[in-house]
């Protein structure tokens, strides 16, 4: 009897899957037939054709007429991931400091951190990005750029920072940025567009992370603090060894949402002309006219990365749980 009901359950699920799969297949089939009847070439074969549009400022450079569209998408993906990773690290660090600051014994620090949270989270993130873009465009042009001790050159073409590397004579040394005509040479470089997005998104998300930290630490029983005090542990040690590890368990689920938010907010790149995945996809769409395929790729990319971030955070959560219970 039991076996029978289990079989019936499996059958029901199988049927549901078959119907769903059939629907998706039919939709795909009809779409491509209709596109064909309108003289629109469909399919993903265009990915292997050489791109008409070059991609500059990316970890992998795409040369027009040489590299494929697939490589251009990859360049955009790397740019998106670079921005997201940098913003996640910065937002987490700032958020942790501000969140702990709100729990500080010092009234001034508490007030300042509370002020930060209220100001930052109540302004739309797009305005943050525009503000920082405006700030960096307000800097002087490369030719009149201000530099501090030859180590940093700040201009409206971006920030240049001295960085160790191999110099002209072939030996390792600190390469200092030098203004040369229109451009600045040497050192590491951060484009104004990247700067605006990185700073804007990080400061904005940090406010939310600060609240998560405050809530997580606040959720611990008062006895935990009192016990550390009774043991004579310094406050910093108590925080590091007793309070934060336990708070982390509470903080992880909402933190995952913030990280996903950062990833999705990275698409604001189009507002300032940073070449993220979305911006490059839009360009490739104009280039090829393959609207349905390009949008499918975009949706697949954002869904896949979001699911990966969720899964990774889930693993961390799970580990923490076991460690906590032990």
């Amino acid at each position, binding site marked *: 009897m039991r076996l029978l009901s289990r079989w019936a359950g499996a059958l029901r699920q199988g049927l549901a899957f078959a119907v769903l799969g059939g629907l998706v297949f039919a939709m795909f089939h009809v779409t491509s*037939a209709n596109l064909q009847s309108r003289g629109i070439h469909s399919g993903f074969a265009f990915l292997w054709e050489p791109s008409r549009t070059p991609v500059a400022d990316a970890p992998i450079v795409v040369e027009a007429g040489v590299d494929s569209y697939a490589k251009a998408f990859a360049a955009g993906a790397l740019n998106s991931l670079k921005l997201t990773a940098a913003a996640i690290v910065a937002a987490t660090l700032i958020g942790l400091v501000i969140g702990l600051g709100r729990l500080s014994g010092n009234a001034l620090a508490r007030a300042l951190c509370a002020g930060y949270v209220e100001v930052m989270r109540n302004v739309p993130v797009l305005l943050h990005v525009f503000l920082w873009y405006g700030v960096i465009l307000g800097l002087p042009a490369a030719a009149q750029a201000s530099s501090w001790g030859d180590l940093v050159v700040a201009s409206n073409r971006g920030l240049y920072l001295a960085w160790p590397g191999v110099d002209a004579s072939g030996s390792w040394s600190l390469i200092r940025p030098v203004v040369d005509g229109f451009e600045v040479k040497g050192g590491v470089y951060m484009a104004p567009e990247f700067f605006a997005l990185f700073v804007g998104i990080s400061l904005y998300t940090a406010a939310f992370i600060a609240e998560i930290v405050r809530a997580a630490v606040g959720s611990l029983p008062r006895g935990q603090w009192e016990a550390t005090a009774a043991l004579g542990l310094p406050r910093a040690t108590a925080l590091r060894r007793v309070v934060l590890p336990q708070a982390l368990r509470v903080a992880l689920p909402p933190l995952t949402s913030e990280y996903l938010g950062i990833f999705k907010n990275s698409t604001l790149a189009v507002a300032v002309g940073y070449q993220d995945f979305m911006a490059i996809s839009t360009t490739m769409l104009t280039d090829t006219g393959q609207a349905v395929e390009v949008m499918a790729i975009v949706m697949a990319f954002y869904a896949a990365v979001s699911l990966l971030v969720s899964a990774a955070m889930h693993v961390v959560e799970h580990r923490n749980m076991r460690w906590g219970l032990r």
Partner: protein
Amino acid sequence: MRHTLALARLLTLTATACCSVGGFSQTPAPPTSAPTSSPTLAAVKARGVLNCGVIGSSANFSLPDSQGVMRGIDADSCRAVAAAIFGDATKVKYVSLAPAQRLVAVQSGEVDVAYANITWTMTRETKSGVQFANVNFYDAWGFLVPKASGVSATNKLNGASVCMLAGPGESNAAEYFGKIKVRYKAVPFSEGEQMRKAFLAKRCDVMFHDVAAIASFKATLGAQAGDYVLLTETYGREPLAGAVRKGDERWFDIVRYTYNAMVAAEELGITSKNIKTFASSADPVVKRVLGIDGDLGPSMGLDKEWAANVVTQVGNYGEMWERAFSASGMPRGPNQLAAQGGLHYAFPMQ
């Protein structure tokens, strides 16, 4: 914002593509020889208004004036089609399109025709399901630099940051600077307004853009216009064309010959002001164009006076050009009639 809009439009396209005409039918209807009716024309007539895709933020092409009326050569090209169909140039609904949406909007039937700074290229016709009816403006790429930079030619631009629009701007810049072997840093923007702001904020040393768009940009600067110089070098060909959906030949004819009639009118010296004096003309060409003789209009499913209505209400090609560009101080150049050394040439109206 534009972005979400673009996305919504693309989703509509997907939806229409998968669920519209034909439903589950897999084989497209066999091609019929010389269709006498146009489904698009029937739909436009039933709707009572022409849906015309324009950029909507491009001075001299399509930009609302202080009264909110769309002005420019693209806007007037839309008006001409409406005048040919309805005998009323005001029956146009302008649909503003971002560059990435233009072809999609035509493919999906969201607009009946698009005059949206679309460059006529081969693959756009062979692969994208759109067809170009006519070129309403011949453009090229140009370079705008601040006068203070002292740059007089593009070969002095080594290492310069170049503001441009993403897509065609990027590919043409790569071709041009590759050819003259000048290193440059591309700063691509998805929208013209962002690019112009960044250029004025000195984010770049050069703006690489359509010559006509640069001229209109300079015209909006007022007293500051003298601070910027358009270099004499130009690059490439940018025939900006009116696009319609493939598969409706009769509709294609209407859009193509509306433009053709405007050029023919200029060649014949017919303007919106003097057209009445041609009513008694003995010239057989004039009589055919104005619908006094022959059946040019009815052959496309339109009134006999279709071309006369276009010229009366919108003017001939030259009048349309003057209205859009004379204030910018740009020479007419390739947009003159062929007889004056330009590229506009009317096919015989017979």
